[in-house]
């Protein structure tokens, strides 16, 4: 059953059109990788889903409900949890306060987030701004989980992190996949790491979804054509 369905989305971002026709389906419990070179519309697509971009054309269905006109906070309450690019925690709140401010009732609470990222418990009283990049990323994921989402969107979650930390984040995503029914949309560039978690891939090229299929079906030819530099 599909949880999220984008149909022929076109959208204008800033002064120019960024999306010219994006189709994307995420089933319940599925991990989908959204790929494409820089500037191909990945971030805009995420803005459409999380309702940060006003008035896209086309249909955005979440749990069979048209959310195309919903304000962003309502989309979040429906169950769309965004881990934004560049982390952006509330830097002058402590780790605990960051989580507390986002909490909504559901199965995800302090204990579960702490179990996934023990580091967040250790650093509970530290200001989020004083954390390392990796810890901030964990906090950003933890914060999104505290809203008890049904769809978790990870926008460049491992960008700019040390390899060891990246592995930690990917391991956490893998754990989420294994132990929950969460649907996950991952935006990332590293195919080798996506391969560990993603069930299927959608590739964007100049604002159009040009290819979709399973991770295994991603041939060298497709990679060259759409993802090569």
């Amino acid at each position, binding site marked *: 059953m599909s949880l999220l369905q984008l149909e022929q989305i076109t959208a204008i971002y800033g002064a120019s059109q960024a999306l010219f026709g994006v189709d994307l389906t995420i089933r319940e419990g599925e991990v989908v990788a959204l790929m494409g070179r820089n500037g191909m519309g990945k971030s805009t697509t995420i803005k459409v889903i999380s309702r940060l971009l006003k008035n896209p054309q086309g249909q955005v269905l979440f749990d069979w409900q048209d959310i195309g006109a919903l304000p962003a906070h309502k989309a979040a309450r429906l169950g769309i949890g965004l881990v*934004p690019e560049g982390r952006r925690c509330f830097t*002058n709140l402590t780790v605990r306060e960051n989580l507390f401010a986002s909490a909504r009732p559901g199965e995800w609470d302090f204990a579960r987030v702490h179990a996934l990222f023990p580091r967040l418990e250790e650093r509970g009283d530290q200001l989020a701004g004083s954390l390392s990049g990796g810890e901030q990323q964990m906090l950003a994921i933890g914060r999104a989980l505290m809203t008890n989402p049904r769809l978790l969107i990870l926008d460049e979650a491992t960008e700019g992190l040390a390899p060891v930390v990246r592995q930690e984040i990917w391991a956490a995503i893998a754990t989420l996949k294994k132990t929950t029914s969460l649907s996950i949309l991952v935006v990332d560039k590293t195919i080798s790491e996506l391969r560990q978690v993603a069930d299927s891939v959608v590739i964007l090229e100049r604002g159009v979804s040009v290819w979709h299929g399973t991770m295994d079906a991603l041939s060298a030819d497709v990679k060259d054509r759409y993802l090569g530099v």
Partner: protein
Amino acid sequence: MIRERYINFLIGALLLIVPLVALQMDEPFIITLATKAAILALAGVGLNLALGQGGLVSFGHAAYFGIGGYAMGILASHAQDYAPLMEVPFVIEGTNLMPVIWLVAIVASALAALLIGALSLRTSGVYFIMVTLAFGQMFYYFAISWPAYGGEDGLSIYVRNQFPGVNTLDPIQFFGICFVVLMAVLFLVNRLNKSPFGLALNGAHQNEERALTVGINVYRLRLVAFVISGAITGLAGALFADLNRFVSPTMFSWHTSGEIMVFIILGGVARLFGPVAGAAVYILLEHMLGGISEYWQIYLGLILLFVVLFAKGGIVGGLARREVRHDG
């Protein structure tokens, strides 16, 4: 660096000790100054919730200060003239009971803040500042041109209003009332700041988009904060009017809005006790420098300039350890 909690305690203790010492030395004027500081601090605490925690630079908080003042003035003037406020469809009498006056001041200023906030929070940045200023000035000119309650001349109340079990005419006892109210409000605001509501308000201040994507209704959150903020400042207005036994349109003027903002900047934006420290220093400067020159605010301006340029955390921020960032 000292923990902010200790600094707060120190500020609160100083504000309490100074009038007590003045009482021993038989200096009632100093008690009145301390009372004024406590009341203005309360007005600042109100604005600080919107400005400091919420990042809502309201340049029209004089509106609520004035509404609180006039709530006291109108109720008390009817009580002293034995003339009911209205007779149709039912009789509403004036009152000289502080708790009733406070309640009216709080409700009236909260309603005004709800209306003004609902409109002005649709804008942001400079526009928000200008819209709130415009609303404040609207009240100012309305008060000037409203002859029923003194118009430009204001309204005098001959006897201070009453509080059960307290002799409000005794300066130290009236100070006690104001000090307790201030501390009670500070306690509540502190609780509020640490609640999910306060944390969300702070988060939305740093990054509105992030707050939205964790499901926070930023507009409603800010509106609620704005209403609470206005209500607190309104309560301060009622006390201020009682201190002076006089209300005038000056309470509504944009100078008043600016002064309340100065307390916060001097004391430390978003610091719980920032407005208390700020208001106390302001009163101190006014008292000391006012004796030297009529234009004492020139010195205030220089000090303010120094704080803004070199000590952004204000008095409390300069002393406290935990840093509060406002741009994230």
